């Protein structure tokens, strides 16, 4: 009843933002473009227009993605500056995933002897924090934590991966997934504490995210040196697959075994029914389609924070769509454009 006192204005704002998402007819126009300049011309009639209008030719696909991301960042910052607790904390949680990605990017790039400035330019703007450049001096995870991350929101997630082992490709991968697991679990607990419609809607969305991560980790680890125990430790401790599904996934050795595990769970039967046996190429698209369905449903209810999370994720999906369409147009492969575009409306 008192939601609108503190959250009413921003809920109205985010619903207004939602109405600016690209429609099926926008995507049809974009999919018929012959060049990136045509894409820019079509986007000039949308809310992305002001962000792309001053970009010089020739355009690159990365430029289109960067400018569209800038729009998302501006909208997010507008909402964050207007938000009060606990909505402001909720909005900050949305960016922790990008923060983890940026930390791993800097650490990996430094390991590969890349210039820090070059790496900073590739970081996601939503995941930036003040001392991020200092990550380049750390030699192991203990130093990473002590020198930089102790003063960031990621500090509590580091307790499970602090070792003195030197940073190498495998340790960095385990660190990435361990941090993300801890972040998801923390976000889940925070939403549960908020209660009400926020807890109900966010539980469903975050549980799906945890399950999808478990499947992706399993598929990506097939044929690698990651042991079954290490694999199991990277799965989140919640979600539909927890705990029995995780036990079965950890021992899978090919995509068909993963499919036989997932088909025991009715919500995932429809996803895997779209794939032929032995094939995993369309799995990402199937998962994204299911996620978009759940995110759109979040807007059917009022007076909860789930709409903010749903909007951010839908925009990110839209940016992924535009990235894919741009790549297909740039590579003259328009016949493949519908392989990965997920319509939102």
């Amino acid at each position, binding site marked *: 009843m008192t939601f609108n006192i503190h959250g009413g204005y921003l809920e109205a704002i985010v619903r207004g933002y939602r109405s600016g998402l690209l429609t099926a007819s926008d995507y049809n126009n974009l999919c018929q473009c012959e060049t990136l300049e045509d894409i820019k011309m079509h986007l000039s009639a949308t809310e992305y227009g002001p962000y792309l209008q001053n970009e010089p030719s020739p355009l690159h696909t990365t430029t289109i993605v960067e400018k569209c991301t800038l729009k998302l960042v501006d909208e997010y910052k507008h909402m964050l500056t207007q938000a009060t607790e606990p909505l402001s904390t909720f909005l900050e949680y949305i960016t922790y995933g990008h923060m983890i990605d*940026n930390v791993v990017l800097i650490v*990996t790039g430094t390991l*590969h*002897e890349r210039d820090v400035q070059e790496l900073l330019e*590739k970081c996601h703007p939503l995941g930036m924090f003040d001392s991020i450049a200092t990550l380049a001096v750390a030699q192991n995870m203990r130093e990473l934590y002590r020198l930089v991350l102790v003063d960031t929101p990621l500090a509590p997630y580091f307790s499970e991966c602090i070792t003195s082992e030197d940073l190498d490709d495998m340790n*960095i991968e385990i660190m990435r*997934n361990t941090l993300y697991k801890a972040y998801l679990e923390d976000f889940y607990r925070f939403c549960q504490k908020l209660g009400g419609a926020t807890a109900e809607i966010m539980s469903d969305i975050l549980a799906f995210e945890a399950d999808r991560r478990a499947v992706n980790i399993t*598929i990506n680890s097939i044929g690698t040196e990651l042991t079954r125990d290490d694999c199991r430790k990277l799965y989140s401790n919640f979600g539909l697959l927890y705990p029995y599904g995780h036990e079965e996934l950890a021992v899978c050795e090919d995509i068909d075994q993963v499919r036989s595990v997932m088909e025991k769970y009715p919500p995932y039967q429809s996803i895997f029914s779209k794939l032929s046996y032995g094939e995993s190429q369309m799995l*990402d698209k199937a998962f994204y389609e299911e996620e978009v369905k759940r995110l759109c449903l979040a807007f059917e209810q009022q007076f909860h924070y789930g709409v903010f999370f749903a909007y951010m994720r839908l925009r990110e999906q839209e940016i992924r769509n535009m990235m894919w369409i741009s790549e297909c147009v740039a590579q003259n*492969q328009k016949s493949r454009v519908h392989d990965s575009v997920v319509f939102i409306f």
Partner: protein
Amino acid sequence: MESSENGRESNEGISVKEENILNFLDSVDGYLILMDSLSSTLRQGWLELASARHSMGASRINSTLFDLKLHPASTTLQVNDQSAAPDRELPHFTLCKWASSNNPEKYFEEAKFGEDELLKKSNSLRHRDISHNSEIQARSPESVGSPVTVDDQAEKERYKSLSMFGTLVSPKLRASQLSFETALEMLVEVSNMRASLLCAHDQVQKDMETATK
């Protein structure tokens, strides 16, 4: 009697010239098919790379993650010395794939393609004689366009080279790696085919010069 012998020699000379022309046309045919295959394999590889970036995210697949540390090349190209045995039909270039500096025994694989795969690309072209072109040998790939079966060491080298993008990478990135690996083999094959083509062209030119004298 002499005129019939001269006629026989002349007929043999004409058939040798025709054979040289056919060799040249065969070489051009093979070269064009290979170039077409190379183009489509590269297109496939680039699209798979874009698909991997779409799946894993731009922060995980980008050029700033390339490893600038010094490390030995995992694949090298060997140029065979033709001066030692100019009469023998040997490939000029040979690919040494996934050779690890830690392993004293190099993995030596010649980049070859099954003729059936090439012919799939263009059914309208005339069938070429396998015995005539010794550089092309049949093999059984796991799938269209994929390299020959490799042992565990080569698989490890493959994963090692992808590890700059992380240890847990999408199958799409691995597919992209296979496509570019196939394209590299094709490039070597194109080079060898071009050498044969130029040799056949020189032969035809010589025949034409002889005929005009």
